[in-house]
């Protein structure tokens, strides 16, 4: 059980303040998600490059890692450490090589997310502290989603926190509780997918990843989940150019959206949106159950 927040900027000023807004929204959802928090920020992409968000033990020397990695790759390696995480930027053509190199050089590190713009951070701890640890308030980007967690049936660990990466520039956050995830997990394992936790959300994330690998669009994959997933869920999926929202047909878990000519925002409670600029005049509404909503910068 949890809190979800999301913000999609329509103008440059909101993009510059994206992290500051998300940090505040995340903190407002602390009561309903005190255990851990995470967020994905879609920061400006680097031409021809790919970002890998890594997570390591406290105090890990990511700068030294980047230096060592430069010796293994042809192109440049830039690094931006933030607490237990770091974003490595490598040439897009070297993404696979970089992953392989990291697997042997630093097996203790976890690749949390990969994308042209997506940077993904998550940790155990109160949401405000997690945001501070990663300096979310300073980040800029076109859009971002965040999550505060109250663990229901699995342990409070970093791996158990959301978002879960579901593909390049894509990740999932979830509020609710699935009831048939164990069976789905077994089936997905049989198809060759790996799992790090006993968490139901991880199953939903891998399920979506599998559907996308099969060639379905995100919209079709989400609509498929209405049949294949049992339980209560509000899903928010971050994509390279926007985000998608889906509520289960019973729709017991709340969800509120707000739109102005400057942003589109999502919050589990209106409280998360209350401090956004111009919220007083925003169109505020609740997404309908069993309906996929998508916002895309290209649209």
């Amino acid at each position, binding site marked *: 059980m949890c809190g979800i927040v999301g913000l999609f900027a329509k103008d440059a000023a909101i993009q510059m303040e994206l992290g500051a807004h998300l940090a505040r929204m995340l903190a407002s959802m602390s009561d309903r998600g005190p255990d851990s928090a995470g967020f994905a920020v879609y920061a400006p992409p680097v031409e021809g490059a790919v970002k890998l968000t890594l997570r390591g033990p406290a105090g890990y020397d990511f700068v030294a890692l980047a230096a060592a990695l430069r010796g293994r790759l042809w192109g440049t390696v830039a690094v931006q450490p933030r607490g237990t995480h770091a974003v490595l930027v490598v040439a897009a053509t070297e993404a696979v090589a970089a992953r392989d190199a990291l697997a042997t050089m630093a097996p203790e590190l976890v690749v949390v997310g990969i994308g042209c713009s997506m940077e993904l951070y998550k940790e155990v701890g109160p949401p405000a502290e997690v945001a501070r640890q990663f300096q979310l308030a300073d980040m800029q980007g076109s859009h971002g989603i965040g999550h505060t967690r109250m663990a229901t049936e699995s342990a409070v660990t970093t791996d158990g926190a959301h978002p879960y990466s579901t593909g390049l520039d894509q990740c999932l956050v979830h509020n609710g509780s699935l009831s048939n995830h164990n069976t789905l997990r077994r089936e997905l394992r049989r198809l060759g997918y790996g799992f790090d936790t006993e968490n139901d959300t991880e199953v939903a994330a891998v399920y979506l990843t599998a559907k996308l690998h099969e060639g379905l669009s995100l919209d079709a994959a989400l609509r498929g989940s209405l049949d294949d997933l049992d339980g209560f869920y509000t899903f928010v999926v971050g994509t390279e150019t926007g985000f998608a929202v889906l509520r289960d047909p019973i729709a017991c878990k*709340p969800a*509120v959206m707000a739109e102005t000519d400057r942003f589109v925002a999502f919050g589990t409670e*209106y409280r998360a949106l209350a401090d956004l600029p111009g919220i007083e005049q925003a169109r505020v509404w609740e997404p309908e159950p069993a309906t996929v909503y998508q916002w895309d910068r290209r649209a």
Partner: protein
Amino acid sequence: MKQRAFARVIDLGQASVRDLNQALHDLGPDSNATHWQVLNPRGRHALAVGVDAEVTIEIAGHAGYYCAGMNKRATVVVHGNVGVGAAENMMSGLVHVRGDASQAAGATARGGTLVIDGNAAARCGISLKGGDIVVKGSVGHMSAFMAQAGTLVVLGDAGDSLGDSIYEAHLYVRGTVAGLGADCIEKPLADRHRAELHAKLQLAGLAGQVDVGAFRRYGSARQLYHFHVDHADAY
């Protein structure tokens, strides 16, 4: 919201929700603080809950969950939207939402009137126990689920599974109904129903503006009042 010179103002930017509710609970029968205005609600929960006094409370903005929960005798006006469970278990009085209401609006309300100028989401009037709800917009799915007594009047449309497992509450919908729930059927609109509908619309300030004949009435088929195996798939 208009400023009123004689009103007591509580600014939630400085005071807490606890301060607000305690002040409202401390009102004695001889108090002359009969009009209250609450500023900067910003989606906070449990505003003006458990009030038992003949006072008017205006909330200047959007409220969170359970606004005016278990209200007795007070008039609560929200100049904005309300979250989940607005006026839940209301006993008497009036709650008027100028904007939209989230899920479970008027849940288990036993008396009083809830008026929503905008739309209400799913499960409006769930388990209603005698209160009256008037929604000028539309209501979401599973509205009036297990509604036992009272009335739900909807000027707009109703979502799927309207009145599922309904007992004796009266439902009036002017727009389209996406689907009826278990044991809920359309029923004829007799003169006494038109009169009831007129009275509820009057409570909502719509007297004379809306044609009662444009509504359709829905209620219990009463097939589930005593279990019978032939109706097992309704459970």
